[in-house]
């Protein structure tokens, strides 16, 4: 148990140290964690993203708590969250002392010039994985080899609707993401998205 908690702390310490920005920035690290540790599946991760987005609290923190809880219950949740914030605390307490040098440092600014598109690329790659899980039936296709079986048509249609309404239709494009999640959940239940 102790070794699991230590590993959990270390994994989230790395997430806290290397993810830059807010919101979805931690997601690519969690995908990589899912592959390397097997603590949770990528499908579970997609559900955790939804829950973390729809509940109070900064999303990155919610994700850490959720993954920690899934891995090692209550202690896991606390350990993962502390692991995530530990690098922030260390780094910020140092920077607060040398604030002026940090702000005017050319290398810091230039580093971020390269970091920002990389961070966006990582989130896009994570988004690609979520699309694969949400919109395709890879296991059904593997059996039948019929191209129309590859797509989860209901989910694709719903995704298209969400895309249109959240970007181009007034007033829905200003709605909070939670509302879209709630509606999508209802649509999923009514139209038996999981086929049950």
């Amino acid at each position, binding site marked *: 148990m102790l070794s699991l908690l230590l590993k959990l702390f270390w994994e989230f310490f790395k997430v806290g*140290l*290397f*993810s830059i920005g807010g919101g979805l920035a931690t997601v690519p690290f969690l995908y990589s964690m899912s592959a390397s540790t097997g603590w949770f599946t990528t499908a579970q991760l997609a559900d955790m993203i939804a829950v973390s987005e729809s509940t109070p*609290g900064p999303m990155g923190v919610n994700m850490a708590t959720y993954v920690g809880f899934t891995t090692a219950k209550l202690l896991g949740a606390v350990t993962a969250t502390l692991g995530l914030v530990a*690098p922030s605390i260390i780094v910020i307490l140092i920077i607060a002392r040398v604030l002026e040098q940090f702000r005017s440092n050319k290398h810091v600014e230039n*580093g971020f010039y390269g970091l920002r598109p990389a961070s966006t690329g990582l989130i896009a790659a994570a988004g690609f994985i979520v699309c694969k899980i949400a919109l395709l039936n890879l296991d059904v296709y593997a059996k039948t080899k019929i191209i129309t079986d590859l797509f989860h048509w209901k989910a694709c249609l719903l995704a298209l609707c969400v895309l249109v309404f959240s970007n181009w239709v007034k007033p829905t494009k200003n709605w909070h993401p939670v509302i879209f999640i709630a509606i999508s959940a209802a649509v999923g239940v009514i139209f038996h998205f999981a086929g049950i």
Partner: protein
Amino acid sequence: MLKDLWELFIAFAKIGVMTFGGGMAMLPMLQRELIDNRHWTTEEEIMDYFAIGQCTPGIIAVNTATFVGQKRRGDLGGIVATLGVVFPSLVIIIILAHAITSVSHLGWVKNAFAGIRACVAVQIINAVVKLGRKSVVDKRTLAIFVLVFCAGVLTDISPVWFVVLAAAAGVLLKQWEARQSC
């Protein structure tokens, strides 16, 4: 001293409860709680903290909390404010995760999450487009974006490496540019 720390904890716990989503969502809450309600800081200072929170490792919300706490009550203040901002997440998510685990085998819950996943997929695409407008500003940043995206999809390399290499690339590209221009 103890009372001050307690106040810091409560202030940031309130901010944590009221922040939905990430990063930017926190800004209006910070303004209301720290400037309007408690008069602890000014608009300019908040923007500074926030800017630094964005360009240092870690979650913006956590970084900003540590920063404000440190400015107000030293290192201990920074730690207390950070614990405050994560406290609501811990409580709420633990309760929810527990509840969801106990109903996750039910058919309608599976159906609901299948619908939710389609929605989340789109929301991530929206976020990428929004971030891309700010981060992909020229051909070189576009190249970094495309390279990292492809490598992220096709390989199992840890994102840590991309972050380290991209930062180095940013510094080198800018230095090379400076040398070219003189």
